[in-house]
């Protein structure tokens, strides 16, 4: 009986509850990693581009997933054909992106949102 008591005194607490300590440590590490990853998710701006979130349900199916960029090789001879091919691909993409007035218009103006009273709106404020 005395020997058993002495053994208990010698073995530290964590060693006597090793399984419980492991479970607690695992949970703590998992929670910490979740906080870190969520922090990165929000701080990097990824959350604002995450169209899987419920607020973007209406536009989710309009994402352009087509990767129509022909692979332009970074090796090979820089001959007339390679330059011409590049210029053709590049101009094609530039024309495509320039054809849309991105973030143009003024949908957030008080007039567009109906935040001005009728008389002000007609007189142009």
């Amino acid at each position, binding site marked *: 009986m005395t020997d058993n008591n002495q053994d208990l005194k010698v073995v530290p607490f964590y060693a006597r509850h090793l399984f419980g300590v492991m479970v607690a440590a695992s949970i703590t590490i998992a929670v910490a990693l979740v906080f870190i990853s969520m922090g990165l998710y929000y701080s990097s701006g990824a959350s604002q581009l995450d169209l899987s979130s419920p607020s973007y349900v209406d*536009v989710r199916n309009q994402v352009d997933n087509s990767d129509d960029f022909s692979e332009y090789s970074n090796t090979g001879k820089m001959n007339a054909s390679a330059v011409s091919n590049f210029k053709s691909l590049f101009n094609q993409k530039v024309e495509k992106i320039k054809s849309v007035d991105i973030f143009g218009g003024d949908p957030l103006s008080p007039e567009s949102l109906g935040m001005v009273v009728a008389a002000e709106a007609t007189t142009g404020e």
Partner: protein
Amino acid sequence: MSKKIVIFGLLAPIICGGIVIWAVNVRAEELSSQQLEQIKGSCITIKATLKQIHSSDALLRVNTGQIYESISTKLMERFDERADYNNMDEDALVASANNFDLLLDNFRSDYVTYEQQLSLAINIDCTTQPAAFYDAVAQARTNREKMHSDVAALNQALDQYNQVVAQFEIDNQKRIEELSQ
């Protein structure tokens, strides 16, 4: 000298306070009571419109960002690397591509600011805080205008890169002809 500092120290807070009070009064004059009532009355409609703009702008950001990203990584970078692979002077090309990447970073970070501001406006209760709501929307509008100018700058950088490629072609005409044979 120390007397002047003390006087300045006493006057500075008074001047700053005066400016703040003046600014607040200007805001109060800008929004008439009629306008505040108009915002309160149309609150639900305005918020619905803001949510639509929020969604459509997110889509625009994703689609546009993808194209700009691909132009940079799949075309410009590769062309620069190919020039280097052929031992041609690609410094001007790299500088122009770096400038484009810098502008693309601005575009990304400005969108984060804009989206945060628009979300802030959407979350303000315009029936109880119409003035704060108006201000938040006005700020979001300014941020959106910044996005528009970012896009203009990016498109200009693309034109610039195109000119650099044309110059590269002229400067390396002999070598290109050799490699074509």
